[in-house]
C-alpha cells in the first residue's frame, strides 16, 4: 500500500503539489474567516503555513529546500520553483493598467536604486561592526542584504570565501522571509494602496520572492506593479555590487 502511494506521488509530483497547496490555501481561508474574522488575509496565513512546513521539512531531511526535500512532496519544488513563479508573475502583468505604470515609472526607478544602495550600506555597516574588515567580505555581505541572489553572484565575482558567501545568502533569505511576513502588517504604515505605492515598495523592498509574497498577502491587485519593478532588482544589484559598490567599499576600507 505504502509503496503504491509513494510511487504514485513520485511519478505525479506536480499534481501532488497542486493538491497540497490547494489544501493549505483552503485551510488558511477557513482560519482567516473563523479565527481572525477576515482581518488577516487568507494568503498571508497560507504563506506562514508554507514557511512553517518549510521549517518542518528542513528539520526532517536536513536539506536546504524545506518541504520540497521530503521525497513525497518533491513536486512542491517544481510548483514553487523559479520557472512557474516567473511564469505566473508575467501573467499578472495582463492586469496592469499601462497608464498607471507609466506615470510611476521614474519613482519606481528611484526606489529601485535606493533599494539597492540602502540595504547594501546597512549590510556593510553591520558586517564591519561584527569585525569584518576586508573589502571583499564587506561587499559580499552587503550584497546579500540586497537579495540572496545578488549576494553569492557578487561574492563569486570578487572572490569571497565560502563561509562569507553562506552568511551573505542567509542574510538575503532572512530578508525575503521578513518581507513576506511583515508586509501585510506594515501595509498601512507604508501606505500600500495605489499602483504607484506598490511600485515604490517593489523597488525598495527588493527580493522578488519577498515582494511577490508580501503583496499577495496584502492586496492581490497590487502584485503586478510591485513585481514589475522588483524583477529589475537582482540585475541592478549584481551590476552595481561587482562594480561601483565594491570600488566604493574598497576606497573607504582599504584593508
Amino acid at each position, binding site marked *: 500500500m505504502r509503496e503504491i502511494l509513494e510511487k504514485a506521488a513520485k511519478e505525479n509530483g506536480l499534481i501532488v503539489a497542486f493538491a497540497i497547496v490547494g489544501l493549505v490555501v483552503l485551510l488558511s481561508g477557513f482560519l482567516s474567516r473563523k479565527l481572525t474574522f477576515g482581518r488577516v488575509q487568507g494568503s498571508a496565513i497560507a504563506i506562514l503555513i508554507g514557511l512553517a512546513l518549510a521549517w518542518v521539512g528542513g528539520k526532517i531531511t536536513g536539506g536546504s529546500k524545506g518541504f520540497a526535500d521530503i521525497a513525497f512532496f518533491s513536486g512542491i519544488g517544481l510548483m514553487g520553483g523559479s520557472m512557474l513563479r516567473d511564469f505566473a508573475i508575467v501573467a499578472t502583468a495582463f492586469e496592469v493598467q499601462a497608464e498607471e505604470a507609466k506615470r510611476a515609472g521614474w519613482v519606481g526607478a528611484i526606489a529601485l536604486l535606493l533599494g539597492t544602495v540602502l540595504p547594501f550600506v546597512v549590510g556593510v555597516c553591520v558586517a564591519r561592526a561584527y569585525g569584518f574588515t576586508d573589502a571583499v567580505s564587506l561587499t559580499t555581505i552587503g550584497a546579500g542584504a540586497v537579495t540572496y541572489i545578488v549576494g553569492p553572484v557578487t561574492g563569486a565575482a570578487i572572490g569571497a570565501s565560502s563561509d562569507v558567501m553562506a552568511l551573505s545568502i542567509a542574510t538575503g533569505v532572512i530578508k525575503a522571509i521578513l518581507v513576506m511576513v511583515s508586509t501585510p502588517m506594515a501595509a498601512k504604515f507604508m501606505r500600500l494602496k495605489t499602483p504607484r505605492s506598490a511600485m515604490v515598495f517593489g523597488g*525598495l523592498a527588493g527580493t522578488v520572492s519577498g515582494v511577490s509574497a508580501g503583496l499577495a498577502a496584502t492586496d492581490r491587485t497590487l502584485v503586478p506593479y510591485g513585481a514589475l519593478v522588483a524583477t529589475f532588482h537582482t*540585475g541592478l544589484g549584481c551590476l552595481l555590487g561587482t562594480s561601483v559598490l565594491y570600488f566604493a567599499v574598497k576606497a573607504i576600507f582599504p584593508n
Partner: protein
Amino acid sequence: MFIYGTALLAVCHLLGIVLGDMLGLALGVKANVGGVGIAMLLLITLRIWLHRRGLLCSTSEGGVHYWGALYIPVVVAMAMQQNVVAALRSGRVAVIAAVGSVVVCALFVSFINRLEPEQPEQPPQDKTA
C-alpha cells in the same frame, strides 16, 4: 482558444528571459537583468496592440488569466521550499543586517508614499499634499 493566450504568455516569458540574459551579457554581469520585467512589459504592450486590432478573444485571454490566478498558490509553494531552518540558525550578523535593511527600506517606502497626493484623480484643490 485557451492555448493562444498561454502560448502568448510563454513567448513573452521566453523572449524576456533571453533579452534579460543578453542585457546581462552586454553589461558584463553574470545574471539576468530584468528578464521577467521585460517579459511583463512585452505582454502589456502586446495585449494593447492585439486589443486594438480585435485579435484577442476572451477565451484566449482566459489562457493568461488562469496563470495569473495561480500566482498565489505558486507563491505558497515557494514559501514551502525556503531554507527556513538555515535562516533561523544563522548568526547575528545575518539577522541584524536583514532586519536593519528591511526597517530602513520600510521607512523609505513610507516616506516616499506619503509624498503621493491622497487622491490623484481629484481636482487640483489638494496641491499641498
